[in-house]
């Protein structure tokens, strides 16, 4: 996994509540058996004017110029400003894969859906929860100044605005540690292999019907 320490990037808006993962990456692109290459189809249904299909050359497709990520001022965006309950619906990890592949490595919103929030951390994407009023203010500042950049410092847990204002955010210690260091969490869990085996032995004695039945 890519590590995440400090990110400075243009902020772009996804200014609606309850953005679901179907909107982030529509189902027809889930047929891929790879982890990469989803960026061109991020927000496909609102980003292009035609209907997207897997394997298309997206550079030749008609763009919806009302969609912010297609506008000149948001080109190269690294931070997405979003609203309540971002990432709701399907558990598809293709959603953070698409965001990361597009270059959006930080999402700031007043709240996230649980599964999406968790999936982000597995893919070098940092979801930051800020108070709804603070997010509102960031939206206003961003709309007012083209090229508006935010600087995200994960180690210090701070979002810095162009005026130098520092806004602190919370992140749980384990996820922060893994993201800062780009750690493989399977290897970390396997450090507890003895504890898992001991548990499994106890559990098998207690609930034998859960073992060796299928397969």
């Amino acid at each position, binding site marked *: 996994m890519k590590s995440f320490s400090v990110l400075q990037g243009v902020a772009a808006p996804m200014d609606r509540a*309850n953005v679901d993962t179907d909107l982030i990456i529509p189902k027809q692109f*889930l047929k891929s058996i790879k982890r990469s290459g989803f960026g061109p189809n991020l927000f496909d249904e609102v980003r292009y004017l035609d209907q997207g299909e897997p394997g298309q050359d997206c550079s030749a497709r008609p763009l919806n110029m009302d969609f912010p990520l297609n506008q000149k001022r948001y080109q190269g965006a690294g931070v997405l400003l979003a609203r309540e309950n971002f990432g709701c619906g399907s558990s598809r*990890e293709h959603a953070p894969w698409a965001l990361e592949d597009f270059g959006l490595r930080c999402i700031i919103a007043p709240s996230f859906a649980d599964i999406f929030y*968790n999936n982000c951390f597995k893919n070098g994407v940092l979801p930051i929860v800020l108070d709804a009023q603070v997010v509102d203010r960031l939206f206003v500042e961003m709309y007012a100044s083209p090229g508006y950049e935010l600087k995200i410092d994960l180690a210090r847990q701070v979002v810095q605005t162009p005026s130098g204002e520092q806004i602190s955010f919370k992140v749980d210690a384990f996820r922060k540690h893994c993201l800062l260091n780009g750690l493989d969490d399977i290897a970390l869990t396997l450090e*507890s292999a003895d504890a898992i085996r001991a548990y499994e032995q106890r559990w098998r004695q207690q609930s034998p019907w859960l073992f060796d039945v299928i397969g």
Partner: protein
Amino acid sequence: MSGQTLYDKLWHCHLVEQREDGTALIYIDRQLIHEVTSPQAFEGLRLAGRQPWRVDANFAVPDHNVPTERVERSGGVAGITDTVSRLQVQTLDDNCRDFHILEFQINDTRQGIVHVVGPEQGVTLPGMTIVCGDSHTSTHGALGALAHGIGTSEVEHVLATQCLVQQKMKNMLVRVDGQLQTGVTAKDVVLAIIGEIGTAGGTGYAIEFGGEVVRALSMEGRMTICNMAIEAGARAGLISVDETTVEYVKGRPYAPRGQQWEQAVAAWRDLHSDADARFDRTVVLHGADIKPQVTWGTSPEMVLPVDGIIPDPSSMDNAAQRESTERALHYMGLKAGMSITDIRLDQVFIGSCTNSRIEDLRAAAAVVKGKKVAATIKRALVVPGSGMIKQQAEAEGLDKIFTAAGLEWREPGCSMCLAMNSDKLGAGEHCASTSNRNFEGRQGFGGRTHLVSPAMAAAAAVAGHFVDVRNW
């Protein structure tokens, strides 16, 4: 100290390691696998040179991409016309073969939607922790199991370690008191709950569903309710074990037998919240107040009783709510002030992990029996949740009732719930659907989904627009 909730009990008996940073290592008894969210997990195992920790904890079945038309289906994997879909189903077969994981392949009679097949086969049992790379894994909570959806990285993590790193969720109780009116079903109950608490209302919670109405439901109905816990924002839905649960599990192919059955049932009897359990939030609904529900917008919380009127955004004070209502009405092609019963339909879909079980098909068949689908309906599909359900329905003659009425009787799979196969809506088409999500584009680019119960969908197929099934 207060008593434990059902969720607390399931959490504690699967706790491998509690860590100082607040996270915990939780043991997973069963992982269900389908073709869409697993290929990258198997690839990850291969790249790291890892093997599954416990092969017999995993079970696989292809469902999302499988064609439901008999002709295309009869060719098996090789017969899937869409080459990308075919590769994904083939990849599941290859991975299960290479890693020795039990799989019901595409034309196995027992194949079906993973959340239907698990309970039906006894692969899902009370008291288990169950995960799957699919958010509707919450369905299995109906059996008193702790079940939730995970992403593909976690699918790989569970394959490799049999555990997940988790933080404990909060406890919510949704109690539905009293009794339901005739014609009102589990689907209407869960839509009413989502309408009440909102699509983010359950975020961070495990929701236990209880009360007289839930206790009176069959397992099929309970699964419908837990299935849509995720549409209320909760990863896990739960219902305590009772006689209905035990009777349902008894005799299933992978359920315990003999002495182990007795031992298991004794353990399952404790799978309920203690009388003095503390919930962080409690929501109460009254069964008698719930009417048949219809969603009008692009989020499951945009729901109204069938006698409702489409809301007027200009009357809303909250700017965000006004904007999202305007956007939804624009997408759905509906006008404020319109009656729900005036919504004209183009297609009808009866199926999905929410409503494709035998009881759902019986309810739909009872409504259309001896009637005809309206001439204005372009297509009405009935897609059973599994091959076993299909067999059962055919034995009861339900397929004949559907086809005589002009509905198509299909092979099992996810079908038009998410339109990954060729069953989809055209742009602008309105669909009465028994599935779980009415998001933009969910059932096809530009498609307009209205979530309803099987009986409501069947009645809409005959009338060509929504009607109150209580008066049917």
